[in-house]
């Protein structure tokens, strides 16, 4: 299908470029911040976009998404947000197009393969839904008024994108809602690194309970130091320990609470280096492992390349600096940024949308994203 050239140039819009360069230089810090910025960019793109049917709009969004993902493939929240927006766009479009008289062929080809993948034919397509205020029917590809389709759809889309943005902004509050049910008095919690989600979770629980937190310092990023300072200034008794003592202390720990970088479709996750150690030690002591993460971290990717994490390596000089001059060229230094933790090691994911066991993550992904969008 022919895409008019002005549609294709959208991908080069300035605002997209700005975000692309920020991503490439890793100037955006934090998964949630990245997601928020992506949504803002998409909102601009959609509001300025010109399209006369739904496929064009989706094509535009996908093109932008592809550019952003290519800028920083390790930051999965970018792709996830784009997919989420696409899902909402399609949903809104379905809702609106059903209201109008131009219904699709409701009884689309029902074949055996559809039967297998979608189950028994549901009757939703046939009945008319509740009447909307959207009485104007959408005319696609109208040659007289090419913008009517876009104009009709845009307000709805803006609302949908605003929903996504709202969800992102309230992530920490929603995750922390159930904090006091998960942490009991006088428990000893172990955490590593500095995850803002876990931080807000623990601080929320501190309002109701008195407990102790052990923070492992997580060399070489030393995120544990900031976490410990932040928690102790909130009044939680904290212990800062080096990573080597995780196994030693695990016999006293009641729960292990960690953050995630991305949650994969098989229920596993990418998390900061050191998580695999903590989780394995927890399993050896039968300590429950709880992961706090927002739903925007759900990634419809299965673990590719197995245990090699996200294949992202950080600066080796923080491990072995140049002051050890004689060693630097004789020795290989490895400083991976992420670990892959398998689904069998995690007990529950606490997300802003409730608590889920790892075995139902694939279902969450099916609900949040459309199958067509797995590959942008």
């Amino acid at each position: 299908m022919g895409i008019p050239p002005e549609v294709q140039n959208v991908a080069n819009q300035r605002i997209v470029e700005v975000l692309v360069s920020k991503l490439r230089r890793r100037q955006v810090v934090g998964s949630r911040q990245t997601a928020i910025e992506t949504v803002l960019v998409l909102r601009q793109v959609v509001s300025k976009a010109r399209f006369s049917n739904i496929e064009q709009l989706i094509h535009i969004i996908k093109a932008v998404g592809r550019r952003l993902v290519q800028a920083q493939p390790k930051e999965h929240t970018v792709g996830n947000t784009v997919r989420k927006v696409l899902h909402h766009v399609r949903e809104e479009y379905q809702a609106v197009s059903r209201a109008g008289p131009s219904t699709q062929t409701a009884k689309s080809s029902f074949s055996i393969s559809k039967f297998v993948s979608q189950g028994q034919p549901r009757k939703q397509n046939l009945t008319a839904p509740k009447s909307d205020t959207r009485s104007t029917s959408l005319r696609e590809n109208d040659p007289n008024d090419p913008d009517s389709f876009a104009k009709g759809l845009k307000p709805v889309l803006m609302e949908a994108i605003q929903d996504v943005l709202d969800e992102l902004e309230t992530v920490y509050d929603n995750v922390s809602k159930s904090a006091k049910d998960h942490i009991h008095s006088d428990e000893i919690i172990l955490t590593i690194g500095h995850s803002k989600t876990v931080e807000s979770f623990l601080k929320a629980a501190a309002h109701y309970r008195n407990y102790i937190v052990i923070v492992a310092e997580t060399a070489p990023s030393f995120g544990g130091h900031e976490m410990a300072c932040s928690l102790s200034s909130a009044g939680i008794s904290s212990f800062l320990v080096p990573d080597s003592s995780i196994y030693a202390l695990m016999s006293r720990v009641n729960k292990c609470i960690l953050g995630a970088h991305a949650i994969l479709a098989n229920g596993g996750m990418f998390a900061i280096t050191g998580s695999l150690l903590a989780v394995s030690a927890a399993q050896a002591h039968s300590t429950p492992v709880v992961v706090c993460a927002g739903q925007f971290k759900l990634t419809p990717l299965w673990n590719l390349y197995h245990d090699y994490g996200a294949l992202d390596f950080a600066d080796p000089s923080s491990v072995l600096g140049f002051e050890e001059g004689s060693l630097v060229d004789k020795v290989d230094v490895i400083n991976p940024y992420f670990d892959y933790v398998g689904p069998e090691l995690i007990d529950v994911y606490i997300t802003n949308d409730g608590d889920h066991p790892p075995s139902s993550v694939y279902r969450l992904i099916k609900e949040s994203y459309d199958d067509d969008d797995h590959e942008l």
Partner: protein
Amino acid sequence: MTKAERREQQERQRAAKAEKAAQNSGKNPPKSANKPSQSSGAGAPALTRRGSRAADFPPKGAQGQSKDAKAGADDKGAHTRGLRIFSHFGLPKPTSHKGEIHPAIVRLGLQFSEFKITGANARCIATLTAFKTVIQDYVTPPNNTLSRHLMTYLSPQISYLVAARPMSVTMGNAIRQLKLDISGTDIDLPEQDAKDALCEKIDTYIRDRIIAADQVIEETAGNKIKDGDAILTYARSSVVEKVLLAAHADGRQFTVTVVDSRPMLEGKKLLQVLSSAGIQCTYLLLPAVGSVITETSMVLVGAHSLHSNGAVFSRAGTALVAMMAKQHSVPVVVCCETYKFSETVQLDSFTRNELAPVELFKSFPQNRPQDLSSLNDQPNLQILNPLYDLTPPSSITAVVTEVGVIPPSSISSIPLALGRTML
């Protein structure tokens, strides 16, 4: 006698503290931070006493504050309870009384407390060498025999060392052997001969149980290293270093991955030694071990001591490495001389451990300038730095000793097999 003195001293201190606590209500957290430093010595009696001292806290906190709101008392209770579970780890106290301590021992104590000499073998050898000097300088007072008086002369020296830094199992075993030798000296022997005989026994001990044992271990463990292997080791064990250098000198081709951890960062020294010998090395920090363990063919670690249930007490972090290796079906081999055997059974890392001084923790590497003071003035923040941990026998595949390669739990049957009563 000195033990009794110590006991009195601690009773006095406890009484004083009870008074102070009754007066100052809201100062519990800083006091419990000071509490470990007030303890002296880390012998077994002190451990139980410290435990009972800690038990005094909740009642002290609760009593005499009847006017306070209940929430306030609960708060204090929670704080002290939290810090209490780690309270039995003694922090080393800077030694004060020098009295009749031999200067060699004083110097040794200083080296221990500043972590200039680390490692079970190194400490044991240094201690025994220092004792040789002490014995040579010793003069038997009149109306006394060497075999009876020397021991009482050495005791305060030993407790001085223990005060500087808790005794390692190796030191304990060596000193026990020394005591046995001293009490076995012939009464009729002239003093200088007796002293020479003792020094020779010490030399023999070092030579047989440590140096020669290491050589046998080098060879035995070296045979397990095949060409093309990727060996992983943690921190710095003197034995493992010897094994790797010997195997390399033997012409075997292998690579070594050195896993290191803060705050001691001992692995760097090992890295220096190995790479100057020409071995291809990789270096990484402990959290990254999960990424490389799949490529490893064998894990080689040292031990501080070995217990009769087969558990290995070693540098903190060894348990993590062994656990990861076991999960990925990588054999874990512990290189350990038989004199490191301890007859006690340890169940977890809390039974007996040592906390490193906080200053050691805060020494950041140069490339990461940090505002260290931010760590100091947080009232709810404690820094805990256990130096050792316990690796359960299930994570260990084999132990290489000078009597051969044995499964970890068989170490207790060795004395019987060798016809000795104790190791």
